[in-house]
Structure formats: C-alpha cells, structure tokens
C-alpha cells in the first residue's frame, strides 16, 4: 500500500478522533464557568449540583482529550518527518508555546477543579475553573495559528533548496497573525462552545423526557439554550469571514467547496448537490450566482474555477470537499434553526411542551460534532495537494525512513485502541448521565457525616483499611 495514503489516513483518523474531545472540553469549560458563577452569585444549590455533575463529565472528556492529544504532537515527527524539518522553526514554536502556556495552565488547575471542591474556598475553586477554561481556549489558539500558517503562510522566508529547503521565521507576529489566523480562531472557538453547550442541552432534554432531575434540568436547559442561540448565530458571521478568507488566499479550495469548474462563469451556491469530477460538472439544488454574490456582492461576477489550476495543484477529492463543506453548513443552519425555535417557544411559554422536540434536542449534541468534523475535513482536504499552501506538497512531506508495513502496524493499533476507548467513553458517559446530578449535601452535612452520597463509597467498608 502507498505510504502517503496510509500516513494521511492515520493522521486523519487520529486527529478526527481527538477532535471529538477538546472542543467538548472548551464548551463544557464555558458552561462550568457560567454555572459555577451562577452558584456563587445566587447560592442556589441547584447550580451547585449541576456544576459538580458536569465537572465529572468534564473530567472524563478531558482525560481522553489529553490521551489522544499527546499522539498528535509526536505524529508530526513519526510520520511527517520531512514536514517537521521544513516547518520546525514555525510550527514547532507554536506547539512549544501551546505546551508551556496553555497545556500547563489547564492541566495544572485541573487538579483543583476536579479534586479541590473541599480543599479550597469557593472563590479559589471558581478561579481554577476559569483558569482551566482559559487554558483550553489558549491551547486552541496555538494549534489554530500553526494550522493557519499552513493555509496562509506569512512572516517567513525559505532557505536552502530541494531536500534541505526549510521555512525560517522572519517576523513572529506576522506569523501568528497570518491572514487566516484570527477568523479561523474565532470559528474554532465558537464551534467548540457549541459542542459543549449542545451537550448540556441534549442531556437536559433527555432528563426532561424521562422526568428526572427536573428542577436542575429546566434552568440548565434554558441557560444552554441561550448559549447555543448566541453562538450559533455568531458562527454564521464568523464562518462567512473564514470563507471570505478562503476566497482570497485559497481559491482552489473555494472552487472545490462549491464544485465550481469554469473560471469565466459566475459561481452558484449549492444547498446540496454532487460533483462529477470526471465530467467536471456539478449538479444539485442551487442558488444561481450565490457564491459570486457572497464573494463579490454581484450575482454575475466570475469566480476562479478548478480548471484555472493545473490538476496537480488543486484538490483531487473535489466531491468529498464539496460534501463535507455542505454538511458543515447544513449542521450549522440546523443549529440556528433549533436555537431560534427554542427561543420562540420559550417566549410563548411552551418550551417543554412538545415531546418530539425534546427528542430532537436530545439528539442535537451530534450537530456540532458533525459540523466540527466536516469543517475540518473541508479545510484539510481542500488544502490538498499542499501541506503548506503553495510551498510544500503533502506527498513530499512524509517520513522517508518509515515503511508502509510500519504504518499499517500503527494504524491497526490505533484503530483497535480507539474503538475500545470510544466504546468505554460512551459506556461511562451514559452511566454518568443515567446516574445524574448528586446531592452531596451541604458542607455541614458532610462534616457531620450525615450524608455521604458518593456512589463509590457506597461499596466501601466504612472508613479505615
């Protein structure tokens, strides 16, 4: 089998699996900050129970995020050694910054967040929650900056040639604030917040359907509804800015995203469709000139088509890029729709009346997951054949010392491990959700030994060895 395909499949698989978790951590982090803030403000124990419940879910998700994330840092070296030598100056710096500034912060305060409820005062604990959230936001910054540099390289020059060519930094801040960093950063952050907020929404919808923990589920549902409404609407505008950036700096990717081949023609915007690469046609339900309008404000303006690029300089999997892009947009529109519907029903005081709608909300956790994955597949597959846009091809970036057999070994290993991990994750998540928020009792209760409602301690002999 081809080393390049194997290396790409492995990277896509490991990063795709990893990407389920950090966005949830970021989104849940925000929800924890909100809920704990409300608890401190109001003293309402409903919020205390919600926070402590979501901390346990957060811990599970964060743990898997860390475990699957370490792989990624080293996978550049193991499978993409040539890439690593080429971009080390730049990409490596971003990763180093991510480690020392962001990971250390979130992992450090994580200990207090999860274990410190009884050890530190409420304000210190809240501070720790905020630090974990900031740390997670900040870690997203560096990796998105690094990836954005791949998409729109800036602040560098090339030294050496052929096999020894490498990019060297000339301006750190130009590198960090390359043309696409900020837009993509916001897009990723909002996508992450939606992931977490929809998870909270879904779980609470499920509780309401089964008439469990209703005093906690109702207010928490409403809070998460506010969050998803604000951020899914924001995402529309932020996403537009990202796509605008793509139209300017990665025209081949834009052409693939909407299956646009002919440079002299206006570009249509598809609701959904299909790209026939061989015959260079795209068919489906479309808004004629829609893309031209979005990019130039004119329904008739021509947009560079795929034919403007040599076949080796444009993405080869055009239909995949097209479909992933449209899947992401569809999921985003669905999120907006569900949010607005929820808000309207809330205003009409009928929010929890329709059971079928609660079922839809219970499943809505999948929408941001679909959008986040589809969006990244669009970005990365659309970036092909480049790993550094316009400069280094993916096919040239591999580790020369690694054989196909070695990659087959590691790919099978990861596949098995991740399937097991995912099964365990779903099992444990489900158990936690079923168990629901727990009333640990007030501080007085605990100190007097009156209530030890800890599922773990139930099965232990009381105290001692």
């Amino acid at each position, binding site marked *: 089998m081809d080393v390049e395909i194997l290396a790409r499949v492995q990277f896509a698989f490991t990063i795709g699996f990893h990407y389920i978790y950090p966005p949830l951590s970021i989104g849940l982090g925000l929800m924890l900050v909100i809920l704990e803030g409300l608890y401190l403000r109001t003293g309402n124990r409903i919020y205390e129970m919600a926070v402590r419940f979501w901390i346990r879910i957060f811990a*599970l998700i964060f*743990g*898997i995020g860390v475990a*699957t994330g*370490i*792989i990624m*840092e*080293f996978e550049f*070296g*193991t499978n993409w*050694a040539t890439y*690593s*030598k080429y*971009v*080390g100056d730049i*990409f*490596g*710096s971003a*990763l*180093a910054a991510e*480690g*020392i*500034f962001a*990971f*250390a*912060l979130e992992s*450090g*305060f*994580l*200990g*207090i967040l*999860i*274990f*410190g*409820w*009884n050890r*530190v005062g409420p304000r210190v604990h809240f501070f720790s929650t905020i630090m974990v959230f900031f740390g997670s936001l900040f870690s997203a910054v560096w990796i998105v900056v690094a990836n954005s540099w791949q998409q729109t390289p800036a602040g560098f020059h090339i030294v050496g040639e052929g*096999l020894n060519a*490498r990019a*060297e*930094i000339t301006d750190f801040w130009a590198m960090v604030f390359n043309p696409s960093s900020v837009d993509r950063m916001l897009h990723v952050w909002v996508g992450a917040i939606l992931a977490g907020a929809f998870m909270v929404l879904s779980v609470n919808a499920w509780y309401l359907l089964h008439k469990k923990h209703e005093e906690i589920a109702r207010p928490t549902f409403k809070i998460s509804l506010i969050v998803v409404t604000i951020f899914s609407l924001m995402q529309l505008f932020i996403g537009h800015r990202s796509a605008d950036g793509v139209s300017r700096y990665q025209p081949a990717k834009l052409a693939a995203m909407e299956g646009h081949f002919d440079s002299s023609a206006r570009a249509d915007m598809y609701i959904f469709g299909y790209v026939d690469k061989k015959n260079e046609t795209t068919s489906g339900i479309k808004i004629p000139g829609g893309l031209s309008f979005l990019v130039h404000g004119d329904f008739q303006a021509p947009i560079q088509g795929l034919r403007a690029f040599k076949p080796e300089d444009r993405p080869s999997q055009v239909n995949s890029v097209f479909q992933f892009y449209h899947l992401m947009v569809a999921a985003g529109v669905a999120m907006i729709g569900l949010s607005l519907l929820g808000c309207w029903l809330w205003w009409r005081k009928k929010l929890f009346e329709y059971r079928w709608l609660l079922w839809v909300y219970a499943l809505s956790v999948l929408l941001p997951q679909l959008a986040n994955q589809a969006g990244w597949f669009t970005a990365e597959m659309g970036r092909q054949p480049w790993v550094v846009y316009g400069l280094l091809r993916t096919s040239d970036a591999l*580790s020369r*010392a*690694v054989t196909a057999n*070695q990659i087959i070994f590691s790919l099978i*290993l*990861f596949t098995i*491990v991740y399937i097991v991990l995912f099964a*365990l994750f779903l099992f*444990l998540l489900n158990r*936690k959700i079923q168990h629901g928020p727990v009333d640990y009792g007030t501080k007085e209760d*605990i100190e007097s030994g009156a209530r030890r*409602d800890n*599922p*773990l*301690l*139930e099965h*232990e002999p009381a105290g*001692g*060895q």
Partner: protein
Amino acid sequence: MQTFLGLDYTTCWFLVFGAVISGYAILDGFDLGAGSLHLFLKKEQSRRIAMNAIGPIWDGNEVWLVIGGGALFAGFPVAYAAIFSAFYVPFMVFLVGLIFRAVSIEFRSKEPWPWWRKSWDIVYCVASIIISLSLGLMLGNVVEGLPLDEHQEFAGSWLSFFNPFAILVAITTLALFMMHGAIFLTMKTENRLFVKLHVLANNFIVFFVVSFVITTLYTLLYIPHLSDFFKGHPVYFIIPLLMTLSIANIPRQVKLGKYRYAFISSAVTIALLLIMVALEVFPYLLYSPLRPENSITIYSAASSARTMHILLIMALVGTPLVGLYTSFVFWTFKGKVKLDEMSY
C-alpha cells in the same frame, strides 16, 4: 553567533531542552513509579489511596513531556524528525502506553465492580511499566547512537533497538522511577500502607542501585567514547561524585524517616543522571556510530537564530508562571491522602 549569558543560543536551548526533560523525569517519574508498583498493593483501599496521591497532579506533570516534544520540534527540528521517525514502532507502543495510563486512572473509579477495578489496575500498572521501559530504551539508543544515512535519516532496523545497553538503560529507568514513586507515596500515606511503601521503597532502592551499577560498568567497558568528555574535562568529575552522594543519601534519609529529603535526593539523582547524559552526548543529539559524519549535532539540527531567540523568551516568561501555579496546586494537595466524594 547570538549569545545569552555567554553561551550561544543553540547551546542555551540544548540546556533548556535538557532541563525540560529532567523536569519531566522528576515529575512524571514518580507518577510512573507509583503506577509501576501499583500491583504490589493488594487492597482496594490502598490502591485507591495510591491513585489519589497522584490524582490531582499527574496530568500537569505529564505536560512536561508535551513541552519537551515542542521544545525539540521547535529548536532542533532535524533531530525531532530523525528521532521520532527512527523510533517509529517502539514509540507507537509508548504512545499507546501513555493513552492507557491516562484513561485507566480516569476510568478505574467510575464503576464499583471488583472485576472492572482489578482489570484497570492491571492496565494502569502494565502501561506505567511499558512507558518507563520505553523511555529508557529510547534514551539508551539515542545515547549510543543510531545508523544514519547522509540525509540524516534512520538507516537501520527497529529490531536493533533491543540491544544490551538500551535494555539496561530501560531497566535502570524503571527501577529509578519505582524507587522515586515509592518514596513519593511514603510521603502521602499513613498506617499500614505507609509501612508497606517504606519496605517497597527500600527494595526499589536496591533494584535501582544494582541496575545502575551494571549499566555504568557496561558503559565504561563497552561504550568508552561516552567517557571522552569527562576524560577531557576532569573538573566535571564533580557530577558523578555528587550523584553518588545523592544516591547514597536516599537510603540514609529513608532509614531516618525523613522521606521528604529522600524524595529530594531522588529528584536530584534524576537531574544529575540526565546532566551526565547531556555531557556525555554534547554536542550530538543523535550520534551515528559507523558514520560519525552523518551524526546530528545541536548545530546541524537547530532552527534559525530568530526562532531560538523567541523560544528562549517563551521559556523565560513561561517557566516562572508554570512554577508558580504548579507550586500552588501541589501545596493545595499537600499532606496525606484523604479520600472524599471527589476522589478516584
């Protein structure tokens, strides 16, 4: 050549990288040690306590590995690329070990069933052992060197990684971590569990000293070029001297019941060991024994001066910050482990 405190940037970054790796070994070393000895503890309560001793802090400790990887990638990308692509198969095993160590800690306590907990105990212990052995194996191979071609890419077979020296270094690393972890746990435990860990600590001290002596003898006899630096700069004999004293101090402090000093001596031992390794290999990051001209030195692997400059600033700004809140977190959880409703 740009300099900082009299040393060129590249050498500075080599020292920073070494410091990060030492930091990782000292911090995650006791987590891995605690994990590696986990199955020596037989009771459910003992195992819970041992896991909760590292519970709040192991994740932050593991971050140093990520920082180290980033430091290598950013400062010495040629070495980063060569080392990780060369070590492909064992490194994948190491990564899977890391995954399972992480999730076993998180998953174990989620269900009360004895079969569930015993299974995760085994996974946790085996994963910690595999990680410790892999780290030692990779270190041993990096120190002895790997066959590299003229493009400084690995030109050998991964089976050659299992050579006597690397295996000895792997075992010594495991022994070192188990000793370090056991001493850490004595500081965090009470009553019968504490007594048991005191005994285990003494056993692991012996395990470490014996493996260390064997490895050192092997090195002196069969890999003489590693002694070249010390031969050429006899004043550096102070390092092995101090190291021997710090090793000797460990059992002494344990006997006196001063476990904190024993732990500090153990940490100092780890640092001095890595300093010795750094001096032995400097300026090589990856030596190529049959064709030394293909070796990767810190200079041939380095990124640009500007990047080094940025990295050094990051290190100067970041380190005190990390040190500050890490100390705060450690301080929050100081003292003997007390299980509560938030514990694992």
